[in-house]
């Protein structure tokens, strides 16, 4: 019994590392993990999504990431995506370890890495906006252009800063104290006169991600009322509702 509980706890922790790329949050906090059971020594995990028409490429990405992190625990694993228009296709692909191309056949060209990368960049942009808007509010005297000079070491040691650092690491940006905060996807700072525009654009990315996450959480609760108990809010989110 004890070992079962321990394994399930480890599994939950592992699934906490699986991120919904569009919403930039762990699938555990979103309530996407429907159940976890140990059946005859095999870990069986059911996943659920807010609608049966959630994009199949992201659905597959999350389900296959889930299987990858669980397999690392050294036990046999079955991951099943429930109630999705592509459940049959995706579950068959997962069971056979067929990979993305093996699962989707002619609908797949190469892989989903470019897609993942695009959303890691968006997640970084949104995290950057969150810290800079806070910084601006805490420093009344600062004009937006002056955010140009803000470096990582200037930021408070809170959740929002830690989230930014993680997202920089994910896209290969340096995380030293003297690194500028407002940078493009390649880590290059913008000229000061462009800062207001870039911040504004970053805001629209953040509004999109936070708003979608909020909507998807709500839809999941409408679809599966028992999922409310499993959902945890984003720790470093601006008030959106």
């Amino acid at each position, binding site marked *: 019994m004890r070992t079962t509980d321990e394994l399930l706890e480890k599994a939950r922790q592992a699934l906490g590392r699986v991120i919904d790329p*569009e919403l930039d949050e762990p699938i555990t906090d979103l309530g996407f993990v429907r159940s976890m059971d140990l059946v005859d020594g095999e870990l069986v995990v059911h996943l659920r999504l*807010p*609608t*049966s*028409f*959630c*994009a*199949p*490429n992201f659905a*597959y990405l999350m389900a296959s990431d889930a299987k990858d992190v669980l397999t690392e625990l050294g036990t046999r694993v079955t991951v099943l995506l429930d109630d999705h*228009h592509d459940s049959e296709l995706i579950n068959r692909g997962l069971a056979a370890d067929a990979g993305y191309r093996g699962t*989707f056949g*002619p*609908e*797949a*060209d*190469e*892989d*989903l890495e*470019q*897609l993942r990368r*695009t959303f890691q960049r*968006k997640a970084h942009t949104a995290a950057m906006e969150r810290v800079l808007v806070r910084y601006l509010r805490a420093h009344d005297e600062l004009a937006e252009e002056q955010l140009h000079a803000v470096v990582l070491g200037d930021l408070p040691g809170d959740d929002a800063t830690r989230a930014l650092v993680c997202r920089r690491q994910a896209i290969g940006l340096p995380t030293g104290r003297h690194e500028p905060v407002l940078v493009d996807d390649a880590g290059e700072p913008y000229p000061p006169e462009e800062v207001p525009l870039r911040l*504004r*654009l970053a*805001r*629209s*990315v953040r*509004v*999109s991600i*936070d*708003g*979608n996450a*909020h*909507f998807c959480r*709500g*839809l999941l*609760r*409408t*679809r599966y009322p028992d999922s409310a108990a499993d959902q945890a809010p984003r720790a470093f989110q601006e*008030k*959106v*509702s």
Partner: protein
Amino acid sequence: MYTKDGENYFIVDAHIALWDARPENQRNIHGKQFIDCFYDYHRNLSPESEVWPYEDYLYQGGERLMRDLFTDGYVDHAIFQPALLSAFYTNGFGQTEEAFALAQQHPDKLTYNHCWDPRFEQAGLDQLTRDAERFGLKGIKLYTAEWQGDSRGYKLDDPWSMRYLERCQELGIRNIHIHKGPTIRPLDRDAFDVADVDKVATDFPDLNFVVEHCGLPRLEDFCWIATQEPNVHAGLAVAMPFIHTRPRYFAQIIGELLYWLDEDRIQFSSDYAIWTPKWLVEKFVDFQFPEDMTEYGELTTAQKRKILGLNAARMYDLDVPEWAVPPADEDATEGKTESVAVG
């Protein structure tokens, strides 16, 4: 017409449907999944008093549509934006004949837009020419994630799509409404990405491209292209109902749209029958940016008038009654002082 605090608003609901999702019309499980997804949207974002029973939601019929929009919903004119979804429904999801008949019966109240699918290639192109004449088309609704044979989506800059857009231009069909969905080929890419709209908006400067749900869930991509392409517009389908359950999120959407586009390129819609217009119109007229969102300023009465009806009326050459025509000196800036005075 909606009247509040002495102000009259001409209402155009720029995105409505007459659908049939009853079990006898469902071709397969996806027909049920699709309408259930819509129903969850409806239940999740509607005020409790406005939630329909599931059975009513499957098919609303013409009589109820007329009542919900024009008797109860303050709408002056509405535009059908049908999705066929032939892969999910035997007789299609949007009911072409029923909707068109209703529009013929009430030409002052209803405009019928139709749809095309570039994957029908030449046959579909010929059909488009016939449809344009039969329906008197001013606009087209495209759902890029429509399933068709082995394909589950297309892009607007695919070679055949470009030919269809050329044909629209020749036929005088100027308004192209784009609804992005979750599937596309190849699945390697983000199906919601609006980069293809950017390309066709440049190539077809005489066409208007109305991106429905203002690009959500990719608001940022949409805003960025709309800034650069003057013929790209924002449709508020799906975005509107956030005004009730998530007013701060709604404020951010509207605030960003006003910043990146302008007040002339945003169109109200209820997305009927996903939601009904009555409560959306009432709440929108009452809406104001929360005080702590200082970055957004004020949403003026003049801006509300444009968004609720005047913008779409201009795009569709609708007759706007005299009472709805704004005074010549009213623009957004003047609207500000005016609405304070009316307060």
